[in-house]
């Protein structure tokens, strides 16, 4: 066979021809990104599962990660970068922007391309057509509803005039489109994998395939010699500073590179650094790596058993932390209760499944290190990088890239420490991107929980007592385990008055992936147990399930199980009242549907939640800054990372109204630790409340400075005209820059040994209704509708709040019905299932605004509250429909069938 003459494959992308020097079986996705620089096409799995890489090949949607370069030759390829040139493409992008269809934006290029294929054939599609066309693209942020809306509305934007931005003073409360929205729609946004310098080397981790094993590494010199592009192999011996990281300042238990012992499948053994092609060619079995596999502790009960080997010498009983809340005498109160209900529940590991895998790059500049990565917590990254390099904090700069979803999973460092070490030692930029399998194996998860609980009420349905015991599988390293163990008991009563409480949660170490922070920090698991008990008590007391919750709802003036008196902004009763008419109507519909008989049984469920905003009984300040240069625009220095939830927009709205200039007048400086102050992490639903208050203070401080300089009164109107600041119509010429700084730390007190104290300054409240049908022959749930009422204090941006609620509900649906991470078995997005566009039903959102005096313009948080009540509401509805008590989560079809009463 004769070799054909060498010939460069030719590609036609967005109407331009390119000759590409890449192997013919290279994935089209990598060719577009790495050879043509078209990084708008995103990668989330390289397996066809996520659809982020969707492009049009000859007009038809295709996953670019599954198309060999050679098969794309000679046909037109259209990517997100080419969309704006088409009128319908531009209209679609405008619809996404105006209707809030992009949050983190990582799935957006794929969504847009899939939608474009549809719109070219059907300019005014119906909902079913949109679902069928977009069914192959996963979104983890939005809950899909706004995406459907935007695709259906795209044709209206063909001629629609551009939206008018809110005027000065009118930003708060408006449905302003995302301030950072457009780059997510035209493919120019730069995520962790999109921006490394061209000469960067690559880092490829070598991870343990075993859950527990000892290993030895031999001489690497022959390997390096055999592969000229391999520059170096990094091991524990190469770590310049402390070979450990972790969330808590006193618990740095997770090694960057393991020291002869691995504790979970995915633990780091060593890392290869070199040219991409060279690294890609190295088989793991070429490494001088020998294993002695040990039996793993694969269950928290095994880890708690007498004689179980300790994961770490520091915790000989494998109990990482115990959280406790004790008030009154629960046992006695239960004995005296008219009705008592009890049960046991077990939940599974849940994977964050952000569509953007961990990625970033680092470079050494003199004696400083710079790390650019996808993160939720730049200042925490800074501390970790300084720690592992043994450098002072001033020597580290963290520049967050755009973040393609976090949900808590990007609070822990991933690529950051090892990239920093590699770039530091090699004095070259070094980049890395985890594969989906690697991301899933190595990253933190939601804690699987085993909960037993008992609760009682009196004859009138008033709750008397709760006993709660939670065992949370915290995996191999501490991560956020202590936070979860602390937060759960404080929330275990749910948003209700329960006078007698004995509640304990333990985080137990096992040879599982580290469990960390995931939207709700353990509270969603606890809510499943607590809400199931309330349903049973309501039935026992003969009280409607909604009314039972209304009777017991915490109201302003009530005291919680931690002894805190809630003084303001407790809108649960208002949420339930708002839901009442929908509850009645949906129950009537279900009854009618059930009257006909048949295997499909209809049911309606309800659940409530509360959620403490910010850290539990710990300081968590934020600092924001607004500056004004002479002759310039105001600049908002905002260190809070927007992971898609919208803080860049919301904080801007707040700062703008506080200052008194329109939001679109501002220049934004975001995230970079050299340029912005510490805003704290994007977690615990705290950015709107904590950083929002700081932003308000900063805006007000700058306003004061301006008014002082202009000698104007507090009601003065500010305006910008041709770059000149006008105060009450008169120009104010500055000779020096002005600045306003705001800092806020929510007032809390630490919890004592009995969990008494003021753990949070404010709480979000919510109630959700789920309406569904259960196929009682197959155990399949057909969700019909979710109605969500949330007390957010004040909706700074209702469009974004709805987006958070819809996205949280989608994750709640996944938690309830399909998501179960099994180490080594569901390490991809086809065995690990998250909801698709067809799995999220119609969502009705009702916003309750019971203002929080401490919050900016009355606002609290919404990020996590959205998810907490969904799963319990679904289980409540399944029970209503069929009598099945769901105690093993997720409620997979076979589990539902087993739970059906016979």
């Amino acid at each position, binding site marked *: *066979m004769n*070799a*054909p003459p060498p010939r460069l494959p030719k590609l036609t992308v967005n109407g331009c021809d390119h000759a590409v020097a890449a*192997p*013919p*079986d290279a*994935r089209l996705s990598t060719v577009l990104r790495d050879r043509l620089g078209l990084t708008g096409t995103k990668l989330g*799995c*390289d*397996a*066809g*599962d996520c*659809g982020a890489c*969707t492009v049009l090949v000859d007009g*038809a*949607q*295709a*996953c670019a*990660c*599954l*198309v*060999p370069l050679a*098969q794309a030759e000679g046909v037109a390829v259209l990517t997100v970068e080419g969309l704006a040139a088409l009128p319908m493409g531009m209209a679609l992008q405008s619809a996404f922007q105006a209707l809030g269809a992009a949050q983190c934006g990582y799935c957006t290029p794929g969504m847009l391309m*899939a939608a474009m*294929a549809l719109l070219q054939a059907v300019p005014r599609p119906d909902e079913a057509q949109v*679902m*069928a*066309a977009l*069914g*192959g*693209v*996963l979104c983890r942020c939005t809950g899909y509803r706004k995406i459907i809306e935007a695709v259906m509305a795209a044709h209206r934007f063909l001629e629609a005039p551009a939206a008018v931005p809110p005027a000065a003073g009118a930003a708060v409360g408006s449905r302003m489109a995302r301030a950072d929205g457009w780059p997510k729609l035209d493919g120019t946004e730069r995520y962790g994998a999109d921006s490394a310098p061209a000469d960067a080397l690559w880092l490829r981790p*070598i991870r343990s*395939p075993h859950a527990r094993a000892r290993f030895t590494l031999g001489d690497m010199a022959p390997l390096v010699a055999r592969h000229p592009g391999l520059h170096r192999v990094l091991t524990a011996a190469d770590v310049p500073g402390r070979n450990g990281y972790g969330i808590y300042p006193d618990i740095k238990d997770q090694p960057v590179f393991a020291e002869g012992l691995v504790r979970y499948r995915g633990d780091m053994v060593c890392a290869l650094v070199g040219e991409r092609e060279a690294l*890609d*060619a*190295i*088989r*793991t079995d070429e490494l001088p790596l020998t294993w002695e596999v040990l039996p793993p502790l694969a269950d928290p009960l095994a880890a708690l058993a007498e004689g179980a080997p300790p994961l770490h010498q520091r915790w000989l009983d494998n109990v990482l932390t115990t959280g406790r809340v004790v008030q009154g005498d629960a046992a006695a109160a239960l004995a005296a209760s008219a009705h008592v209900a009890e049960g046991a529940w077990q939940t599974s590991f849940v994977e964050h499944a952000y569509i953007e895998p961990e990625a970033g790059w680092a470079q050494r500049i003199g004696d400083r290190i710079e790390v650019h990565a996808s993160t939720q917590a730049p200042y925490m990254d800074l501390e970790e990088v300084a720690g592992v390099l043994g450098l002072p904090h001033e020597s580290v700069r963290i520049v967050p890239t755009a973040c393609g979803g976090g949900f808590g999973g990007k609070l822990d460092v991933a690529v950051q420490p090892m990239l920093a070490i590699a770039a530091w030692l090699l004095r070259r930029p070094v980049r890395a991107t985890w594969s989906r*399998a690697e991301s899933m194996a190595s990253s933190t998860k939601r804690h699987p929980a085993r909960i037993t609980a008992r609760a009682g009420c009196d004859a009138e349905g008033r709750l008397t007592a709760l006993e709660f015991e939670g065992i949370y599988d915290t995996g191999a390293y501490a991560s956020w385990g202590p936070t979860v163990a602390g937060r759960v008991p404080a929330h275990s009563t749910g948003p209700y008055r329960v006078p007698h409480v004995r509640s304990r949660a333990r985080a137990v170490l096992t040879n599982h992936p580290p469990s960390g922070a995931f939207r709700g920090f353990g509270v969603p698991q606890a809510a499943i147990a607590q809400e199931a008990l309330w349903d049973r008590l309501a039935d026992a007391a003969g009280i409607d399930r909604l009314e039972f919750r209304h009777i017991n709802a915490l109201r302003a003036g009530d005291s919680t199980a931690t002894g805190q008196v809630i003084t303001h902004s407790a809108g649960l009763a208002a949420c339930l009242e708002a839901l009442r008419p929908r509850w009645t109507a949906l129950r009537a519909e279900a009854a009618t549907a059930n009257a006909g008989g048949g295997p499909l049984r209809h049911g309606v469920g309800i659940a409530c939640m509360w959620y403490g905003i910010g850290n539990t009984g710990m300081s968590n300040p934020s600092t924001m800054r607004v500056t004004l240069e002479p002759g310039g625009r105001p600049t908002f220095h905002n260190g809070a990372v927007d992971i898609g939830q919208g803080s860049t927009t919301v904080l801007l709205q707040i700062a703008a109204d506080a200052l008194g200039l329109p939001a679109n007048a501002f220049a934004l400086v975001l995230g970079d630790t050299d340029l912005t102050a510490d805003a704290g992490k994007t977690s615990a639903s705290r950015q709107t409340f904590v950083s929002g208050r700081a932003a308000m203070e900063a805006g007000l401080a700058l306003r004061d400075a301006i008014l002082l300089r202009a000698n104007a009164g507090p009601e003065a109107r500010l305006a910008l005209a041709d770059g000149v600041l006008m105060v009450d119509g008169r120009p104010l010429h500055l000779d020096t820059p002005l600045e306003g700084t705001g800092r806020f730390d929510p007032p809390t007190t630490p919890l004592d040994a009995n969990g008494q104290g003021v753990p949070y300054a404010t709480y979000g409240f919510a109630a959700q209704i789920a309406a569904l049908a259960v196929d009682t*022959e*197959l*155990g399949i749930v057909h969700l019909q509708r979710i109605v969500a009422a949330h007390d957010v204090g004040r909706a700074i941006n209702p469009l974004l709040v709805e987006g958070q609620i819809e996205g949280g509900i989608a994750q709640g649906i996944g938690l309830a*019905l*399909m998501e*179960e991470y099994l180490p080594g*078995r*569901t390490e*991809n997005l*086809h*065995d690990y*299932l998250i909801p*698709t*566009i*067809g*799995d999220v039903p119609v969502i009705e959102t009702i916003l309750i605004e019971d203002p929080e005096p401490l919050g900016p313009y009355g606002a609290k948080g919404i990020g996590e509250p959205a998810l907490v009540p969904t799963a319990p509401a679904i289980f409540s509805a399944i029970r209503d429909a069929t009598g099945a008590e769901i105690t093993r989560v997720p409620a*997979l*079809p*076979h589990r539902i*069938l087993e739970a059906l009463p016979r």
Partner: protein
Amino acid sequence: MAAYRRPESLAEALALLAEAPAPPLLLAGGTDLYPARAAAEAWGRMESRPVLDLSAIRETAGMSDAGDHTRIGARVTWAALREAPLPPWFDALRSAATRVGGAQVQNRATLVGNLCNASPAADGVPPLLALDAAIELASRRGTRRLPLGEFLAGNRRTALAPDEIATAVLVPHAAPGARAGFEKLGARSYLVISIVMAAAVIELAEGRIARARISVGACSPVALRLAGLETELRGMTVAEAPAVLRADHLAALSPIDDVRATASYRRQAAQVLLRRLLTRLAAPAIREAA
């Protein structure tokens, strides 16, 4: 063979294959191969075999009516099947075509690739088993036809010889007016691998079932035809068919516990799906929505 070849004729492809020192990887739509590659590479197992891309071979494009059977070329994608004006006995296969992966996968993945990949959960297999389809295999030694049930040798195993390429699926015509349907059960709406699926093709003569062909997938290493049930249904009316079904008709299934479901659930769900399928096919003149 060079690392990658994409021949345009079958003869060239067969020659490359016959002369290759080691068997190359045969590539069609790539929707099974590339994910498998990603999974292996994630744990450091690199694929280094040369690739023989079959997607440009002229002879295997398109579908045609060959008198007593329909010939579906190896390059035919799920999307093409979904859109094709095929006779009603293809309704089960067409329904499967709308449920495989998402639009991206349907646009590029081939039916023949689905068969050659030989997954126990391959959605193409039950409908084709119920049609008594055969697969055509070509090599420089000649061409042979194997019934699909013989071609599929087990979980991810086929009777394909190292020098062979599958060139087509051959589907014998069924009686005019035959009814066919497909049921797929998964744990979410789109992009889901089947927990169980069932397919049926029913031919009628004078208001009675002349021939029923019924298969169940994802409950055994290779999807199975239910011969006992088929025999019992002969001579009945379609309306009587659902009530005939009993658990022992599914005795030959050997479902397993896996991440998607338990074995006992699969067995039970298979029976429910089949009963619903037979009930649906009993309703006259309702063609499977494509």
